[in-house]
């Protein structure tokens, strides 16, 4: 066989590939021949060392590539029995949770197509009584790092007792859902919750950005650097702990605690009864309904500033209690060098 024959065979065998991949590979083999010949090897020696085209094609797993092309790497698993608790370990998968229309549980996932990459990621499910466990796994256990991107979509019955969703780098999205207890953990995936009714919502993140819109239930958030946006919250309590994340809040919380190091905050809470802000250098803007309610605010800060409404109030002294509104509300300020503005 000559170089020309070999390359022709190869070209035909690689026909299932993306044209760009094919061209690049053909150029690689041509280069291999050119260098080999320039080093005095014969075409036959080079062909022998490259290996038979059939073997190469086998290593490509073309059958699998073809199935990938036909989009058959969509999977669906359905559970007909009653599920009350769902625990998801998504790792790098992007997890989306929405309400199921037929009260059954469906798990859909699509492994992103790759050109020469293999399908190494899979999803396993296990049911224990009313609890469903869903975990993203890697078929190639030896090398866990070699993973495909994956989208994991769960259609779950509304009114679950508990939903736990963990990811490392995968994003988490929950839309139009009802659950008693929601527990979210993520390292770097972003967390978006839209239109959710719950009793208690707990979020632990590291660098995740957190976006909540139209969320009902008590909220507890702990994160390091992600920003936190909560809009149209309906619930009595909201506790937020973050190091450098900025916080934006708009809702009905009566009790609110905020602990930050450097994150800034803008809080609109007209039903507030007790607000506790502890920050080292964060600046906080509050929008409160001063006329109607009796409330107490404690603002403890090193160099952060506080403004309530737009009027100015300047009190750089420590431990000062100010009475505002109709006299039933109290603001406690503790600061080393912060500025305060109070309407």
């Amino acid at each position, binding site marked *: 066989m000559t170089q020309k024959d070999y390359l022709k065979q190869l070209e035909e065998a690689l026909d299932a590939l993306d044209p760009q*991949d094919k061209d*690049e*590979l053909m*150029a*690689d*083999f041509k*280069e*291999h021949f*050119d*260098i*080999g010949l*320039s080093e005095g090897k014969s075409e036959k020696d080079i062909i022998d*060392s*490259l*290996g*038979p*085209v059939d*073997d*190469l094609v086998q*290593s*490509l797993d073309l059958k699998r590539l073809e199935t990938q092309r036909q989009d058959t790497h969509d999977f669906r698993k359905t559970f007909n029995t009653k599920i009350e608790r769902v625990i998801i370990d998504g790792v790098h998968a992007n997890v989306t949770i929405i309400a199921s229309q037929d009260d059954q549980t469906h798990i859909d996932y699509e492994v992103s197509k*790759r*050109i*020469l*990459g293999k399908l190494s990621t899979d999803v396993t499910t296990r049911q224990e009584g009313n609890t469903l466990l869903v975990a993203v796994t890697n078929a*190639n256990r*030896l*090398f*866990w*790092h*070699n993973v495909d991107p994956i989208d994991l979509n769960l259609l779950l019955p509304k009114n679950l007792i508990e939903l736990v969703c963990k990811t490392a780098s995968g994003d988490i999205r929950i839309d139009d859902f009802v659950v008693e207890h929601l527990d979210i953990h993520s390292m770097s995936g972003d967390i978006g919750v839209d239109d959710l009714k719950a009793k208690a919502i707990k979020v632990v993140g590291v660098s995740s950005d957190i976006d909540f819109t139209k969320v009902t239930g008590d909220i507890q958030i702990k994160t390091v650097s992600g920003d936190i946006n909560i809009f149209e919250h309906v619930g009595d309590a909201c506790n937020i702990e973050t190091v450098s994340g900025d916080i934006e809040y708009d809702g009905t919380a009566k009790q609110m605690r905020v602990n930050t190091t450097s994150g800034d905050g803008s809080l609109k809470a007209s039903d507030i009864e007790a607000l506790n802000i502890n920050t080292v250098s964060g600046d906080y803007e509050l929008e409160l309904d001063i006329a109607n309610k009796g409330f107490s605010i404690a603002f403890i800060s090193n160099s952060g500033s506080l403004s309530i409404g737009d009027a100015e109030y300047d009190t750089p002294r420590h431990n000062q209690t100010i009475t505002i509104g109709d006299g039933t509300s109290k603001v406690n300020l503790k600061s080393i060098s912060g500025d305060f503005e109070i309407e």
Partner: protein
Amino acid sequence: MNAQFKKGVLELCVLAQLAKAEQYGYELTETISQEMSVASGTLYLLLRRLKDEQYVETYLVETAEGPARKYYKLTTKGLDYTQALKHGWLDFIQQVDRLIQ
């Protein structure tokens, strides 16, 4: 050696070689085939996949006497990945070693 098994290990060998020095394909296939019997052609497919996954980058170098050479270079991501693979591998052979001794 089992073919499936060899494939995973081959990836580690290629990455480890590139971690030592940036090389062109031909050079790399020579180094690898000196140590293990492997069809050089599969290495090009492997390299293409590693490039897809952004573990390696390529650049062309013109040569005076012969054809231009496509050099392969590890990315930062590729270097991290190589380290992870290497640890995985070393753990694995230790486990096997304990079991077969």
